[in-house]
Structures are given as structure tokens and as C-alpha cells.
């Protein structure tokens, strides 16, 4: 099997195993690690997790499919999640979403052809007091406006052209 945890994530994985009386409990944190390390949970990534935890693949698949942050498809290098729930809606989330779709030329669930951006409408991010809010990889961007979105996209593009190696963030490091 080609996939392997980096030494850092291997150490994290080993620490996870010690936390629970039942190794199945390490499954979701391990999937979060794998999601982060490999970008998304390909069939191969899930097989890898299953083998590391000595669990049936079907068990891993059954759990992974339940959780939206455990991605089953590749996302852009910058995965943009727009909260569409009630408080954000009241503060203009739909305008933000429409604007993002227009300037990126993609809809929710799609990735730009250059692989730089992907877009997703999400549920409440627990940031309703600073609505509307978007999350780009690990980071929240609050009190957003169309102007701020434009600045943000520009700085993300700059970031991408300057440094290589940024990977899409996909959940917490356990």
C-alpha cells in the first residue's frame, strides 16, 4: 500500500490508540488525520485506516460516510464553506454565496478547473454573532462582506503562487 502517515501523524496516531479502552473509538480521530494528510478519504485512504486499526473496511466506510467533514471527494486547495443557516441568512449570506459562485465560476460542491478553490454551502458554524461567516480550510472569516471576500480571494491566490505545499484543511488535528 502506497499511503502512509507522516512521522508526525504516525506519532499522533499512536497517541490516539492509548486514549481509549476500545480501538474503534480511535476511528474518527484517525479518519480526521487521514483526511488531513491525504487531502480526502479515497478508497485507498480508508483501506489504510482500516488496516491500521485492524477493522473491517465496511466498518470504516459505514462510519466515514456519516460525517460531512470526512471528505469522500477531493476539494480545492482552498475549500470555501459558506454558512447558509438562519443568522447568516439574515445578514446576507446569500449575497456572499452568489458572489463567490460568480467570481469563481463554480457552484456548491464544485472545484475550480485549476484546483485552487472549491465551494460548499454549510450549516451553522457557531459564529452567528459575527455573521455572515465563511470558513476557508481551518480558518474562520467573520463579519464578511463582498469586498472582504474579494480581498480574501486575492490574498489566497497570492499565497498559492508564492508558496507551494499548502494542503486543504479538513477538520481538527486530534
Amino acid at each position, binding site marked *: 500500500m502506497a499511503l502512509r502517515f507522516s512521522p508526525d501523524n504516525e506519532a499522533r496516531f499512536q497517541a490516539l490508540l492509548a*486514549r*481509549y*479502552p*476500545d480501538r*474503534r*473509538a*480511535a*476511528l*474518527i*480521530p484517525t*479518519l*480526521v488525520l487521514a483526511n488531513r494528510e491525504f487531502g480526502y478519504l479515497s478508497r485507498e485512504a480508508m483501506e489504510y485506516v482500516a488496516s491500521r486499526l485492524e477493522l473491517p473496511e465496511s466498518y470504516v466506510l*459505514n*462510519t466515514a*460516510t*456519516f*460525517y*460531512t*467533514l*470526512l471528505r469522500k471527494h477531493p476539494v480545492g486547495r482552498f475549500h470555501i464553506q459558506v454558512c*447558509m*443557516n*438562519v*443568522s447568516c*441568512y*439574515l*445578514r446576507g449570506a*446569500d449575497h456572499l454565496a452568489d458572489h463567490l459562485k460568480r467570481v469563481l465560476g463554480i457552484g456548491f460542491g464544485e472545484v475550480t478547473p485549476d484546483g485552487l478553490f472549491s465551494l460548499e454551502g454549510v*450549516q*451553522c*458554524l*457557531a*459564529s*452567528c*454573532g*459575527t*455573521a455572515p461567516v465563511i*470558513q476557508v480550510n*481551518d*480558518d*474562520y472569516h467573520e463579519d464578511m462582506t463582498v469586498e472582504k471576500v474579494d480581498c480574501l480571494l486575492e490574498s489566497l491566490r497570492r499565497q498559492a503562487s508564492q508558496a507551494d505545499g499548502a494542503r486543504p*484543511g479538513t*477538520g*481538527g*488535528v*486530534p
Partner: protein
Amino acid sequence: MSENADRSAPPTPPTGPFLLRCRPGEAILRLDDHLTRGGFEPVRKALAMDPDAVTDEVKRASLRGRGGAGFPAGVKWGFLPKDNPKPRYLVVNADEGEPGTFKDRYFLERDPFPLLEGVIIASYAIRANVSYIYIRGEFVKQIRVVEDAIRQLYDRGFLGRNVLGTGYSLDVYVHPGAGAYVCGEESALLESIEGKPGRPRNRPPFPAQVGLFGCPTIINNVETMACVPLVLRHGADAFLKMGVPGDGGPKIYCVSGHVKRPGLYEAPMGTNLKRIIFEFAGGTLDDRPILGVIPGGSSTPVLTADELDVAMDFNSMRAKGSMLGSAATVVFTEGTCPVAVLLRISRFYAHESCGQCTPCREGTGWLERVVESIEHGNGRPGDCDLLLSAAGQIQGNTICALGDAAAMPVQSFVTKFRADFERHIAEGRCPHAHG
């Protein structure tokens, strides 16, 4: 003001803020900064007491759960079986998913030590040696903050073997969620920690009997935990007097929507809703009249402008026909389409139903589709009654309260804004300029 004031010897009540102590932009992330502010005195106090005496103190304080249901924390702790030899667990619910709610994040991001003090005290009281803090997966930064705080506590002997030399041992771990609102429901949360899809369990047995890994387990919300050291520091009586009879303590109110100053506000439990909206949050944008207020998170029945003179505590809100929930107040002013607001809410619950029970799986999708058709001009005469009866069929017929959470906003919006729903149907379009 205080009904409990003793006139002969005026007590000097402790002054807050008790929960939201960080000033804007401030965060208390170093253990030393927390200790210089009197941190961990409540923990030392608790560890010198008998565990059952700690539970009694929390019981007497009438600390009701801040996660939404308002169950008295001390009473819940008392449900643990006395004779079960299995290990016990404390699980902290940091899934913060109910739309409108953003209070637990304050502790996870800017002030983790009061939460962790609560975890130590509660674990000690229930005789648990392991505690898991389940933090929603989107909170990447917050997970790092809490893990760093835990590390500092281990380094200084506040966690691990022989806590502060008392002989008591406690391990605390963060467990990340992975994006599923239903995992905020306590039994789904346990399933999720066990590595399974987050499908709520049938009860009984309750988690206090059969919880995590089949062992007796107590689940409490982050804010509930952060209140526990206050009970120890100020005493049950003082804590109780900070709130209303039977419902003690300070409370964090989350205000969002069409107000001038959205944000978190700490005030006594039982603070008047009007005061929260108009005084704390500065009133509505452009001083527009209020159309509706969702008082306690998106599942709680909506209130109209003439229903806002109410104390925000668990019993008063019930008496008003709504709920305190997570005290997540969402304000919307005239000019807002109530059907469009309900559509966001109904879409959410349909999306988040775990699909396990038929009334919830089918019913929530059905509610969403009918509300959507009304909003998009395809409503039919009789749809309002259909919505009410469909919601009624979900309520009380599901394994967990997600079904109720989906039904209550539909019932309240359709009842209180019925004329507006009927107008959508009659005109075959949304009559409001929005979008």
C-alpha cells in the same frame, strides 16, 4: 431588585462578570495568567471535600444544564449507580451545533481553564478517572487551544496521576467531531466517540446507567462545566441567588440577526428578553420594528414582537410557550419573509436527520419541501394545515429530540405568521422583496 435580599444584613453579592471575563480581543491561554486570577481555588476546595458533598453543592445551586434541555446538573450526577464496579466517564459536549448558538466557543477559543476546572471538579464528584471533551470538527483552532491548555495542566500536576497530590487521578482528552449536528445529541455523541455513525440510542437505559463503552457516563455542556467552579468558589447559595429560584447562576446570551450589536452577553439567569435585545444588543438595525424573535436556538418556538416581555430562564420561557434552549436569540425585523426564515431552519433539520426513524427521516424532508414550495410560489390551499399536522406527527414519535426540534419551529411559524404563509399561497409568489 433582588427578592432574596436580606434586609437586616445586606450581603455583598459577588460581582461579575463570572463567565465572560475576557475583555474584547483578550484571551487567557497561559495557566499562570489564570492562576494569578484565583484560578484553581475551586478545584482545591472540591478535592478537599467528599465527592458526594460536591454533587450536593451543585444540586443545591440549582445549576441547570446549559446545552438546551435545562436538566439540573447535580441531580443528573446523582443518577449514577452506586454499586456498578465499571469505570465512569465524564463527557463534555462541545459540539455547539444548534443554529444561533456561539457561546461555548468563547471558552474553547479564549478561556479554556474555567471549563477544565469544571471538568476536574465534575469528574472528581462522579468518581471518573477519564473525561472526553467532544469538540465539533470545524473548531480546528479551538481544538488546539484546549489541547494546549490540557498539556499545561498535565505539566503542572493539575491532571494525570495524583492530581495536586490528593491521590485522585484524571486523564482528559479532546475527541474531535467530524461534521454531524445530530452528534450534539448526547447518545449520538457517545456513538460517535465509539467510532460509529452518530445515531441516537433508545432510552432507557440512560447514559448514567449504560453510557460510553457500556459504562456509567455523565454528559454535560461546556457552559455547564464552566459554571461548576463558580458554584464551588461562591457557594451554592450565592450561585443560586445569581439567577432565579430553581434556576441558579449567570447565563450567557447569544444574540444574532437584525440587531445593532450582535454578540455574547452575560447576565443573570432570568434576564428580560427585551433588555437583552434592546439594551445589550442595542436594539434593531435602523430601529426597524421586530417581526419575530427565535429566543433559544433555531428549534425553539418563535415569539412575536408583543411576546418579548419575558424572563429568559427555563421555566418562564416554557410558560410563554417557548424554550430557553441554548439562549441563542435570533432577531428578525419587519420586511423579513418569515417563510424564508423557516425554510432555512427546516432545510437544516431535514439535512441533519440521521435517518434512523421514519417519522423524522420522512417528516423533516416533507416539511422542508412544503415550506420550500410555499416560498417559491407553488403552495396549495390547505398547506398550512398540512404542515401543522405533519409536524404534529413527528413530535413525540422519534428516538431523539431532533424530530421535536424540527417540528416546533414549523408549528410556531405557521401559527404566528399564518397570514403571511396564506398570502404566499394565494398570490403564488413570495410577496417580500428579498434574496
